[in-house]
């Protein structure tokens, strides 16, 4: 007797047919860059624990054009993650009621983006101040 071969509809390229899902797949894909960047930092930390020579060889490796290219791509991807994270935030957080009115989505999104911009500038200022 033949084995059962039920029909399974192919999922090939389902998301490419709808711009909404294309955007969805891109913002989910930013996780690959977050993971890879965490891996780069983890490697650096392990090299740091192995002593000065190991640390310096890791620092030199970061100047490799492949690493620079990766970090340019990661910068774009993670910046896009920041944008989508706050863009969908009105739907991922519980409703906020202010004065009997539900807080509008754009208020949550723009507040989040403003806080992110301030955090980034604050981090840069902190690092600059500590390194000077």
């Amino acid at each position, binding site marked *: 007797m033949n084995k059962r071969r039920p029909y399974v509809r*192919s*999922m*090939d390229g389902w*998301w490419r047919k709808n711009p909404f899902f294309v955007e*969805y*797949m891109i913002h*989910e*894909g930013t*996780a*690959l860059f*977050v*993971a890879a*960047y*965490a*891996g*780069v*930092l*983890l490697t*650096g*930390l*392990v090299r*740091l*624990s192995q002593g*000065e020579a190991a*640390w*310096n060889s890791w*620092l030199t490796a*970061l*100047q490799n054009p492949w*690493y*620079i290219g*990766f*970090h*340019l791509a*990661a*910068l774009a991807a*993670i*910046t896009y*993650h*920041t944008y989508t*994270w*706050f863009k969908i935030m009105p739907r991922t957080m519980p409703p906020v009621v202010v004065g009997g009115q539900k807080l509008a989505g754009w208020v949550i999104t723009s507040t*989040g983006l403003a*806080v*992110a911009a301030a*955090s*980034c*500038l604050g*981090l*840069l200022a902190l*690092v*600059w101040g*500590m*390194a*000077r």
Partner: protein
Amino acid sequence: MKAPLQRSNAPIFWALFGAGGMLSALLGPMLVFITGLAVPLGLLLPPDTMSYANMLAFAQHLIGKGFIFAIIALFLWHAAHRIFHSLHDIGIHAGMGAKLLCYGLAMLGTLITAYALLAVGF
């Protein structure tokens, strides 16, 4: 006697995903710029920003340790959760094996981070 309701472990993974997502949204772009572009290319920041002495002192300080641990571990848990749930979207019917692989790698990275932070001393 009625068995007590099974508690789901989903909120734990979701909380780690959310915390990592928030941290990477707030600081991720600037961190990538500093460690991946500004320092290697010698832009903007002093040349010894990430010198061995500076980074060792940072990793030996309690606040520095906490920052490094939170960044690496939460980024990993955020990404693991998102990648695990996206497997379904690309047609992989993810089961327990995929879950163990995704969250297991995040756990492994977390343990290595903790170990290295202890190894650099105090």
